[in-house]
C-alpha cells in the first residue's frame, strides 16, 4: 500500500507538540546520551569494507534480525505473486548471475538467488541474504546480457560487502528515525507502482532508503568498480554497464519523485566513472571475450518483456507500456503477440500522447492532477480537452491497425479479438464490438475473464456504455 492517508496516522500523532519543548530537549539529549551510548558515538560510523571482506563479518543480533526479515521478505514476494515464474527466464537470469559470482565459496549466511520481480519500475536491488531482484521494468529497458551481468555484479557487491547490514548499523548509530511508511509515501505519493519497494521498506527502512536513494556514495562506487572488474574477468564488455546508466536516463512518464536508479546527476557521474574505469583495465590473460549478445538476450526474455508491458499498463504507466511494446515489435515484428502488446498499449493510452508533451514536462498542474484524482478521473479530465480527444482518436486508429496485423499473422490469437472488442466498444461501433467479443468467447471457452466479457457483450448488445465510462 502506498497510501499517504494510511501513513498519516502516526505522522499526525508525531506532529503534536506540547509546550516546554525547548526546556525538555536539553534534559532528553543528556538522557539519550546516557541511555543510548552508541548514539553519542555516531561520528565514528562503521568502517567501509572492501567489496569482498578480508576479515569475517561478525554478526550481531541486529544483523541476524535483519537477515530473518530478509528471508521472510523472499517468502512474501513469492506468496504475493510478485515474483515472475517462468523456468526459462529464471534459468537465464540465474546463468548470467552465476557467471559473475565471486569464485570463492559464498560468504557466511549468503544463499545466491537471482529472481525477476513483476514490477514495471526500472530498478534492481539486493537483500543481505543473497537474493538479488531485477524488476521486469529494468529487463525491458536493457539490450543485452552484458548489461544484465553489469547490474547483477553491482548488486552482488552490495551483498558480499555486507552493505545492507552496514547501512542498517550506521542508521541505528545515527539514531535517524526513518519512518518507513512516510518514506514510502514520499517515494510514491500518487501511484500504486513500486510495490516491491514498499515490501522492502517493511523489512528495513535502511534497505528501502538504499534502494531509493542509493547506498552511501563510497559503497556505490565500490559496487560499480567491482562490477567493472567482474565483467572484464567474465569476458563481458564492461562499457555496457555505462550503457545501462544511459538507458536509465530515458524518461517515459512524468515522474513526481526521483529514485537512485533514475536520478540524472548521479547517473551522469556514474557513466563517466564506469567508462573511465572500463577503459583503463585490460582483460586477464587467457580470458575469452564475449560479444554483447542482443539476440539471445531478447529471445530469452521476450516473454517477460511482454508481461512487463501488461504490468506497466495495469500500473498506469501507459507511455512506458507503449515504448516497451514498440521495442518488442522492433525486435520481432513477426510476432503476433508483440503486435498485440503494442495494440493494447495504444488502446490503453486513451487521451494521452505516446510521449510526454514538452509543455507538460515539469508542470505542477499535471503533478497536482495526478495527486488529486483517481486513474479513471485523470483519464476523463484529459479526454475532456480537445488535445486529449485528438490523441485518443490517433491512438485508437493505431490500435485498430495493430490488432488487424496481429490477426493477419495469427488468426488464432484470441486476445486480439478481445482487444478489438474493447476498442470498438469505446469507439461505439457496437456491432463490430459484439462480434469480436463473441469470437473471443468462442475461441477461449475457459478464459479466466469469461464472466467479464459476457457482461460486456450483454451491455454492448443492449447499447450500454462501458462501466468505466458510466462511472465518470
Amino acid at each position, binding site marked *: 500500500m502506498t497510501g499517504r492517508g494510511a501513513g498519516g496516522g502516526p505522522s499526525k500523532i508525531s506532529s503534536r507538540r506540547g509546550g516546554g519543548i525547548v526546556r525538555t530537549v536539553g534534559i532528553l539529549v543528556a538522557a539519550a546520551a546516557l541511555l543510548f551510548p552508541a548514539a553519542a558515538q555516531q561520528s565514528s560510523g562503521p568502517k567501509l569494507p572492501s567489496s569482498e571482506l578480508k576479515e569475517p563479518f561478525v554478526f550481531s543480533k541486529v544483523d541476524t534480525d535483519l537477515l530473518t526479515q530478509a528471508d521472510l521478505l523472499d517468502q512474501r514476494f513469492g506468496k504475493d505473486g510478485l515474483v515472475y515464474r517462468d523456468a526459462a527466464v529464471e534459468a537465464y537470469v540465474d546463468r548470467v548471475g552465476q557467471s559473475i559470482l565471486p569464485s570463492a565459496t559464498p560468504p557466511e549466511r549468503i544463499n545466491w538467488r537471482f529472481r525477476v520481480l513483476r514490477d514495471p519500475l526500472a530498478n534492481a536491488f539486493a537483500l543481505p541474504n543473497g537474493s538479488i531482484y531485477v524488476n521486469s521494468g529494468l529487463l525491458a529497458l536493457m539490450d543485452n546480457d552484458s548489461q544484465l551481468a553489469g547490474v547483477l555484479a553491482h548488486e552482488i557487491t552490495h551483498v558480499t560487502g555486507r552493505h545492507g547490514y552496514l547501512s542498517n548499523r550506521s542508521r541505528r548509530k545515527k539514531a535517524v528515525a*526513518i519512518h518507513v511508511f512516510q518514506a514510502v509515501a514520499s517515494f510514491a505519493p500518487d501511484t500504486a507502482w513500486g510495490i516491491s519497494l514498499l515490501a522492502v521498506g517493511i523489512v528495513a527502512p535502511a534497505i528501502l532508503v538504499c534502494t531509493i536513494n542509493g547506498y552511501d556514495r563510497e559503497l556505490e562506487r565500490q559496487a560499480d568498480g567491482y562490477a567493472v572488474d567482474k565483467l572484464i574477468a567474465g569476458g563481458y564488455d564492461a562499457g555496457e554497464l555505462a550503457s545501462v546508466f544511459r538507458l536509465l536516463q530515458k524518461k517515459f512518464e512524468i515522474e513526481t519523485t526521483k529514485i537512485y536508479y533514475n536520478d540524472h546527476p548521479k547517473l551522469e557521474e556514474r557513466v563517466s566513472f564506469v567508462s573511465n574505469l572500463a577503459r583503463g583495465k585490460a582483460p586477464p590473460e587467457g580470458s575469452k571475450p564475449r560479444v554483447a549478445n542482443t539476440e539471445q538476450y531478447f529471445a530469452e526474455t521476450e516473454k517477460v518483456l511482454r508481461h512487463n508491458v501488461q504490468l506497466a499498463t495495469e500500473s498506469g504507466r501507459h507511455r512506458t507500456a507503449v515504448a516497451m511494446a514498440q521495442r518488442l515489435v522492433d525486435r520481432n515484428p513477426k510476432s503476433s503477440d508483440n503486435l498485440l502488446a503494442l495494440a493494447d498499449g495504444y488502446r490503453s493510452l486513451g487521451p494521452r500522447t505516446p510521449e510526454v508533451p514538452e509543455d507538460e514536462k515539469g508542470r505542477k498542474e499535471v503533478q497536482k492532477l495526478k495527486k488529486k*484524482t483517481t486513474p479513471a478521473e485523470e483519464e476523463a479530465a484529459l479526454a475532456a480537452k480537445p488535445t486529449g480527444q485528438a490523441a485518443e482518436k490517433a491512438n485508437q486508429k493505431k490500435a485498430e491497425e495493430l490488432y488487424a496485423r496481429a490477426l493477419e499473422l495469427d488468426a488464432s490469437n484470441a486476445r486480439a479479438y478481445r482487444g478489438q472488442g474493447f476498442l470498438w466498444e469505446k469507439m461505439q461501433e457496437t456491432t463490430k464490438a459484439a462480434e469480436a467479443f463473441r469470437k473471443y468467447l468462442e475461441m477461449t471457452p475457459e478464459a479466466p475473464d469469461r464472466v467479464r466479457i459476457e457482461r460486456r457483450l450483454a451491455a454492448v448488445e443492449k447499447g450500454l456504455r462501458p462501466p468505466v465510462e458510466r462511472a465518470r
Partner: protein
Amino acid sequence: MSFTARALSLLAALMLAAGPVAAASRSSGTQIHPKVKSKEKTIRQVLLLPAQVEIQRSGMKGGEGMLKESEDVSLKILDAVGKALKDRGFQVADKPPAAAGDEAQYSLASLQKRYDAVAVQLHKRMKDVSKGRFTLGDEVANYGPAAATDSVLFVRGQGTQLTGGKKAFGILVAGAKASTMRCYVTLVDSKSGEVLFTTMVFVTGGGFIDRTEEVFRKPLAKALQKIPAAT
C-alpha cells in the same frame, strides 16, 4: 545527588512514563454508496481477499520490520472482519481463497494493485464514497473467484508498535506517545467495481497484535450496522 543516582532516577521516570496504555479502538469515516443506501444494490455475498496489514516497530533507533507479526495480524483482522460480516447476515467464505497457479496469483496481485491505485484517493476522501466517486472498473471480475460473488472485501492496515524508549520520548518531548494502527475495510462491487462501503478502524494504545479480534470486532460491527440488511 551523584551523577549515577540522577541518571538512574531519570531512567526510572522514563520507564514509568512508557508503561502500558489501555487500548482503545473506534471506527470512523464509515461511508456507503448511494445505491446501497437506497437499496438499489444489495450486498449478500462477500469474498474476503487476503488482508495487507503492515506493522513496524518504531524505536529511538528508527523503524524495524515486523513481517511475521504483520502476517499474523493480517490473518486475525480478516478473521475478525469475516465474523463481523457473518453476524450482520452476509454470506462469507471462511478463508481467503488460496491462489492456485501462477496466473491466478498474478490475477489476485493485479486486483490488489488496482485497489491500491484507487486507495490513494479513497483513504484521503472517504466521504466521497457516498457520492459514488470511486470505482475499480469491471476488471475486478478478471479474478475468477470475484466473478462468482456480489462483492469483494479489501483490508489495508498500517500499524506502529512503539518501544518503551520511544513512548517515553514522545511523552516528554514530542512525537507519538502510544502504539497506533489504522485499518481500512472496503467493499467493492464485483460486477461494476464501484466502491460500496468503506470504514477505518483506528486503534491506539497497542493491543492490535495480541488482542486483535477483541480490538477490531466491536468497531467493525458498529460500522457494518450502517449497511442495510440483505433481507
